[in-house]
């Protein structure tokens, strides 16, 4: 009983069936992994993200230059083999500074996403699963938080708590919570009304089991995709806050601080701002691409 518009889907499903010889869960996971790895864009994005995270953890593997060693003679050098990203106004190696700055930014982002995941998932599951007045209350609270743009909420928190990497991370994390809570709740609500959940309930399963075995595993997908997307958004937010001057104290430099510091030399040495910014943009682009591809293949 296909319609004209659905015929492609059934045709694909039909032809795919005999091709798959192995069956069951592990075979299916392997098939998903194969489908992902066949996409060159996905591989490039994965490799770049892996490189950035690894270089943030152990920058010494990728650069021998000291990010804080000044060399006035070598100041404002353009990119070359010796200095991949050139040098800044004090002669410090910019590539090394970007990699070391990555550690701060990635830590802050991970903390922010951790806060958002715990808070957002908790609220979303509570709201969607319990329903009733709890749901109404949580969702009104989320509406209020959504009304305040994320970065402004973060600015208010930074004003109150003070500057530095950790306050920025907390501020950004709190700003992401409402979006997470909403998505989680919507997914939980969707899965909760599916026939297999009703089947489990009428099969006598208690709510706890239904939540853990059916609702959570099946609502996790979109939430995980959102987490990766928000990781990118959080990197930008953290960078924006440090660009505005609310991040770590010098000489330590997060990515936003590097871009901001290079601004004064934009006319003569544009790479000082533009290369770190390109680095950040490519990372976020790679993260977004990973999230979207996983979403597409998983569908």
């Amino acid at each position: 009983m296909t319609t004209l518009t659905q015929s492609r889907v059934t045709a694909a499903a039909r032809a795919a069936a005999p091709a798959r010889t192995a069956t069951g869960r592990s075979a299916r996971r392997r098939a998903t992994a194969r489908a992902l790895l066949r996409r060159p864009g996905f591989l490039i994005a994965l490799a770049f993200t892996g490189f950035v995270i690894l270089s943030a953890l152990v920058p010494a593997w990728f650069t021998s230059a000291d990010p804080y060693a000044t060399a006035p003679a070598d100041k404002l050098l353009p990119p070359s083999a010796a200095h991949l990203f050139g040098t800044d106004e004090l002669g410090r190696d910019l590539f090394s500074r970007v990699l070391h700055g990555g550690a701060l930014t990635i830590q802050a982002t991970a903390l922010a996403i951790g806060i958002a995941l715990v808070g957002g998932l908790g609220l979303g599951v509570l709201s969607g699963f319990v329903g009733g007045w709890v749901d109404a209350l949580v969702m009104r609270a989320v509406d209020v938080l959504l009304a305040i743009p994320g970065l402004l909420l973060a600015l208010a928190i930074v004003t109150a708590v003070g500057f530095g990497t950790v306050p920025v991370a907390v501020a950004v994390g709190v700003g992401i919570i409402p979006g997470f809570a909403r998505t989680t709740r919507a997914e939980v609500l969707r899965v909760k009304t599916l026939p297999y959940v009703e089947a489990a309930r009428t099969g006598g399963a208690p709510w706890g089991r239904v939540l853990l075995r059916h609702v959570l595993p099946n609502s996790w997908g979109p939430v995980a995709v959102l987490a990766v997307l928000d990781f990118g958004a959080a990197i930008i937010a953290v960078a924006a806050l440090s660009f505005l001057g609310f991040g770590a104290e010098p000489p330590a430099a997060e990515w936003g601080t590097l871009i901001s510091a290079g601004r004064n030399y934009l006319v003569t040495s544009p790479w000082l701002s533009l290369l770190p910014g390109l680095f950040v943009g490519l990372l976020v682009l790679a993260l977004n691409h990973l999230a979207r591809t996983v979403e597409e293949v998983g569908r």
Partner: protein
Amino acid sequence: MTAVAQLTDLEVTYRRHAPAVRGVSLSIAPGEVLAVVGESGSGKTTTASALLGLLPAAGRITGGRIEVDGLDVTHAGERVRRGLRGRVIGLVPQDPMVGLDPTRRVAGQLAEAVRLRGVPRRTAQVEVLQLLHEAGVDDPELRARQYPHELSGGLRQRVLIALALAGRPRLVVADEPTSALDVTVQRRILDHLVDQVRTSGTALLIITHDLAMAADRADRIVVMQDGRVVEHGPTATVVGQPQEAYTRRLIAAAPGLRGFEPRPDEPAPDVLRLTGATVDFPGSGRVLDGVDLTVQRGRTLAVVGESGSGKTTALRVALGLQRLTAGRIELDGQDLTDAGWKQWRPLRRRVQLVHQNPFAALDPRFTVAESVAEPLVSFRVGDRRTRATRAAELIDRVGLPADTLSRLPAELSGGQRQRVAIARALALSPEILLLDEPVSALDVSVQAQILDLLADLQRELGVSYLFVSHDLAVVAQVAHRVAVLHRGRLVESGATTQVFTDPRHERTRELLDAVPGRSAVAR
């Protein structure tokens, strides 16, 4: 007379897959009604898409020819194809509920199609009303001003028919026409469409899974399976002297063509009893009104009705998911009228549900073995090993091979999934299975297999069924007794033989008349 449309050895392939249509030839003469009959995956829909030039981006015509109105359009460009759409070939889509643009008035959508013929704006309005009138829409002036969501499904289908005919085409393609509607509405609209094309001399191509429905209306029938034409010829020949085993199977699966063989009604003790069951919904009023239903041990009670009849609510009451406003519900003599979730829980071992949609009824992350054993886990029956043994035994019982146990639902067909769902429902050895339209989402020949399975299980296990369906034809094969609901009231109930041969109520007669295939047999 030249054909309106002619397909010669047509082959259509979706990117990186085996051909979906392999060497299909057929022709449609002016004014003829041709039916292409096949189950899902037969290629019937792809064939129609290719004819309309509406193949999805991944689909390519890889062989053969398509001629429309004497013109070779096999590889014609978008401009040529657009000129044919609407004016030479019109389309009546499958689902009337989603076939119309929700944000535009009926008149606007129709006028747009009429004006493509070059009709000036002023006379277009007159033609729109004329088209609606011809399609059997009452009060065309009112309907033209309305938005699609303000119309019933039947009216929307009539508007879609008017839309298909707005370009005065020479051929109308009807894709699974009206299968989304109630059976009686379905019958009236199809009859009207056939009358309309016959008087105007337009050819009609019906794409359907339902051989009986095709037999009632088509001049000729083409039966398709796996992308090929397996049998074709005049309706009387195909239905009366089928040459192919596949055609014979389709006929056997259509009760209207095969004739009714109801199961005898021998009395047995009552298991589940609803007495004067009444349910009020806040806002939508009384959905169930003083209904008496009795399920007997080892017997099947079929509850039949169209949408809004209250049959689903009755099922939810029997499942303990819906409280009664008035009346009583008893299970084995135990009064459960005021029982809450706690009192119901132990009873769930005795009453189980099989859901309508096998595609959503299984958790996509659970293997078949896990799904089947889940009720055992919920009730802490046995240990890991005995549960695995029980799952294997159940899978065997519902006629699936043992290697199914490790599979995921995505790797199973609709019929296989429904067997798994039945196995799960049987895991706790319940006394009653509540079956909510258990075959309506399946292909006809698969339907017959599932219904046979249900009958076998009942014979072997002595389980009782409450079988809810909108389709009297399906019910005929499994029910001992039939109850007909209409707008929340019980209008007729009795032994299946009596209800089918001597219906007392007007609604029952209408439902019986709507069972396809009866007029073909009479012919």
